[in-house]
C-alpha cells in the first residue's frame, strides 16, 4: 500500500495498491535497475549464494565498499580483505568501478580439440552491458594445500592462454598471463585476463575460452594436470570453483542515451 506521514510522527495507510499497480511498480523498479524483467532462468531454481563467485562479490559488498557516493572509501589498510585476499590493486579497481561482474567457469567442450593435461575454461560474457567499458579482469583459482596423493611437489608456473582457433583438432593459443606458485601456498590465485575479456566482449564469436597450463617452474615442457597441484576445478567445492571477475566503468554518454530512451 501507500503509506504517509500524518504529521504527528505516525505512518498511516493512505491507499491500498492493487495487484495491477503493484506489477506496474515492480516493472518501473526493474527498469530503474536496468533489467527488462527478473531473470527467467532462476524462477524454478533459485541460485545459491554459497558458490565462489557470489561469495566473492558479497565479500566486496560487505567489506570493501563505501556507504555512499559522497563518502570516501575507507583507507585500504582499514578495510577487511575477507577470505578472497583482495590486494591493493583489487581495492583500487573496486573504487573505480560502477559495475563488477563475476563469470562462473563452464566446461564448454569443442569436439576434436585435444586438451592434453591442461584445462579449458569458458565464460559466458554475453551479459556484459554494452554501455560499460572494462577497467580490468582477473581469473581467480583456488589452490588447496592438502591434496591427497599429490605427486607434484615444488614450485610451479601457472600460465593462462586465450584459445584462438580449434581447427583440425589443433589449438592456437595466445599467452595472457602467468604466475609462479610455491609448494605450500594455499588460497586464491589471480591472473590478469583483461585483454581476453575485452576481446570476447568486442568479438563474441571468437570466445573459445582460456587454456590453463601448469608446469614445474624448472621444467617448462613437462605439463601437469592443475588438480594434481591442488587447483580446484569447476566441478570442485562450490565455494572454491574458479571464476572470472570483470571491473567496469559506466560510459556517461551512452548512459544518458539509455535514460533518454526510457
Amino acid at each position, binding site marked *: 500500500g501507500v503509506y*504517509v*506521514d*500524518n*504529521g504527528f510522527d505516525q*505512518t498511516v495507510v*493512505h491507499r491500498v495498491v492493487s495487484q495491477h499497480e503493484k506489477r506496474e511498480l*515492480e516493472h518501473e*523498479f526493474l527498469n*530503474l*535497475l*536496468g533489467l527488462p524483467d*527478473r*531473470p527467467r*532462468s*532462476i524462477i524454478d*531454481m*533459485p*541460485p545459491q*549464494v554459497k*558458490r565462489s*563467485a*557470489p561469495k566473492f*562479490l*558479497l565479500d*566486496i*559488498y*560487505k567489506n570493501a*565498499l563505501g556507504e*555512499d*557516493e*559522497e563518502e570516501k572509501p575507507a583507507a585500504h589498510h582499514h578495510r577487511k580483505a575477507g577470505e578472497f585476499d583482495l590486494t591493493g590493486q583489487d581495492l583500487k579497481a573496486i573504487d573505480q*568501478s*560502477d*559495475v*563488477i*561482474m*563475476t*563469470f*562462473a567457469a*563452464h566446461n564448454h567442450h569443442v569436439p576434436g580439440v585435444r586438451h592434453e593435461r591442461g584445462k579449458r575454461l569458458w565464460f*559466458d560474457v554475453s*551479459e556484459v552491458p554494452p554501455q560499460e567499458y572494462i577497467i580490468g579482469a582477473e581469473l581467480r583459482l583456488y589452490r588447496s594445500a592438502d591434496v591427497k596423493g599429490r605427486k607434484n611437489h615444488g614450485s610451479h608456473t601457472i600460465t593462462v592462454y586465450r584459445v584462438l582457433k580449434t581447427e583440425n583438432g589443433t589449438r592456437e593459443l595466445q599467452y595472457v598471463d602467468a604466475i609462479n606458485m610455491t609448494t605450500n601456498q594455499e588460497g586464491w590465485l589471480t591472473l590478469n585476463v583483461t585483454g581476453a575479456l575485452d576481446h570476447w566482449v568486442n568479438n563474441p564469436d571468437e570466445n573459445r575460452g582460456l587454456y590453463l597450463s601448469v608446469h614445474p617452474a624448472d621444467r617448462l615442457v613437462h605439463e601437469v594436470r592443475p588438480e594434481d597441484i591442488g587447483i580446484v576445478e569447476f566441478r570442485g567445492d562450490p565455494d572454491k570453483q574458479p571464476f572470472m571477475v570483470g571491473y567496469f566503468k559506466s560510459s556517461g554518454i551512452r548512459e544518458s542515451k539509455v535514460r533518454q530512451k526510457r
Partner: protein
Amino acid sequence: DARRKKKSESTNWDYKTNPYTDPGATFYSRTCRIQTLYVSFRDLQWQDWIIAPDGYDAYYCSGECNFPLNAHMNATNHAIVQTLVHLLNPGKVPKPCCAPTKLSAISVLYFLDESNVILKKYKNMVVKSCGCH
C-alpha cells in the same frame, strides 16, 4: 445532460483556477522537507535474486514552497524568482518545486542468471536533502 455538464464544470473548477495545486499538499500541508521512504526488495519478493541489500532508505521530498523561502529549505536563487512570479499570477505559474537537492548512490548485488552475478552502483537513488527549485 444539463446536470452532467453543470457537475463537470463544478468538478473542473479547481483545476482550471489553480492547476498547479499539489494533490499531496491537500492531504497534509507543510513546508518542503525530506520524508521517510524505505524500498524493501524483500517485500517485493526479490530476495531470491537480489542478494544484497534487503532494501534501502530512498526517502523523498514533499511539502510546500511558500513565501518567504527561508534558508533551511535550501531554496535556489531561481526558486525565489519563481515564487514571486507565482504570487503575481498564481493560476498560471506554479510554485517552486520541492525536490531533492543532494542525492547519493547505492550498490546492489544480484544474480544475472544461475551462475553469473553483478554488483552494480546506482547513482542518485537516495535523497540526502530536499529544497525548493
